[in-house]
């Protein structure tokens, strides 16, 4: 039946190869492994080109989608800008309130409470000692106040104590504002302060009784007293009622 000798010979060869593989499965497995190894090596360039083509097609498709998305987002953005402008117009009346509450919120002056530990009756030299010093943040020149009324200024300090010169002491001198004009005043060891001179203006200004005298401060204007006249001479009368148990020292003033 087999009319070709070569074919018959090859059949015999493969028959023995088959028998070898059947008897020694290791050789069969190795042959299979080599076949797959060759397959993998031959596939590599094709799979590389294939992956490149797939990526390119994917990029083309995704590019189309992204362009559509960009157009849609541009439209949405335009719409939102219009709405935002409309809302800005509506809420513009609240802008001032916003600035008050969020941006220009007034800074409160920092002050610390202090108690008198020295001469409380101010009899000797119109100065007293308080229980706060440089370690508490007190510096020379800080104002000592009761409410908004100035009681005195820090004259000297130690770590834990400070000496305060009261406004009525002759050692006290300050720059005050009366009716937007600056004056230099000094204590007299009495219940009033006398004017030394007007600071800037050459012309004299007629002072009226009960005009309030302020001391300019960074955060709050402090009250020194009121204008009064003694023997037709203008003086500043300090408030009579001063609560010395409720003193505070302005630290950042």
């Amino acid at each position: 039946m087999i009319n070709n000798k070569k074919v018959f010979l090859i059949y015999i060869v493969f028959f023995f190869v088959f028998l070898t593989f059947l008897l020694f499965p290791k050789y069969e497995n190795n042959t299979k492994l080599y076949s797959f190894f060759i397959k993998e090596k031959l596939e590599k360039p094709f799979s590389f080109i294939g992956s490149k083509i797939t990526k390119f097609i994917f990029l083309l498709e995704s590019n189309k989608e992204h362009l559509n998305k960009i157009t849609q987002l541009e439209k949405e953005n335009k719409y939102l800008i219009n709405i935002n402008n409309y809302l800005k117009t509506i809420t513009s009346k609240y802008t001032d309130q916003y600035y008050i509450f969020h941006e220009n919120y007034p800074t409160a002056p920092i002050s610390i409470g202090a108690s008198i530990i020295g001469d409380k009756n101010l009899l000797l030299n119109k100065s007293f000692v308080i229980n706060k010093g440089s370690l508490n943040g007190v510096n020379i020149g800080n104002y000592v106040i009761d409410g908004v009324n100035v009681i005195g200024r820090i004259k000297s300090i130690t770590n834990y104590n400070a000496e305060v010169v009261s406004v009525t002491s002759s050692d006290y001198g300050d720059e005050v504002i009366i009716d937007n004009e600056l004056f230099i005043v000094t204590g007299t060891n009495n219940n009033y302060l006398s004017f030394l001179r007007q600071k800037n203006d050459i012309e004299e200004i007629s002072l009226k009784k009960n005009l309030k005298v302020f001391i300019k401060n960074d955060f709050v204007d402090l009250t020194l007293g009121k204008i009064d006249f003694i023997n037709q001479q203008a003086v500043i009368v300090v408030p009579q009622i001063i609560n010395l148990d409720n003193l505070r020292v302005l630290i950042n003033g």
Partner: protein
Amino acid sequence: MVRIFLIILCFLSYGNFNYAIDIFLIFSLINLAFYSFLKEKKIKLSDFLIFISSSYLIEIFLGLPLFISVVALSIPLLLLSNIINNFFVHFSIISIFIFILSLITLYFLYPEIFIIMKFKDYFLYFLVLIFLGISLRLDGKEQN
């Protein structure tokens, strides 16, 4: 030459696509093997080598013992070739016979595939039948 090219193509393509295409490639290899063996009464060396190579690929891909089909199927196929080629049968009938024989072989290798496949999936397989018919006809013209 075309068959060698198809064998290389099947060798490279197998495993890179989905399950259905892999089975179709196996089916094509079975067809190639049967066609190479049954197309002539007197088998040529080149046809026999193509039969060996295509059956070898099927054995590798399906994990069968190597060269079992060469040893086991050569004699029955030789008998079958004698029967077919001794009678004057139209080439289209031979191509249908090879196609059905390949389908039966595929059924023994993959019985579950005939449960999974739908009717429309068979259209791809009929392409093989068409090419079988065309190649048999061209081969007959060459012989004349």
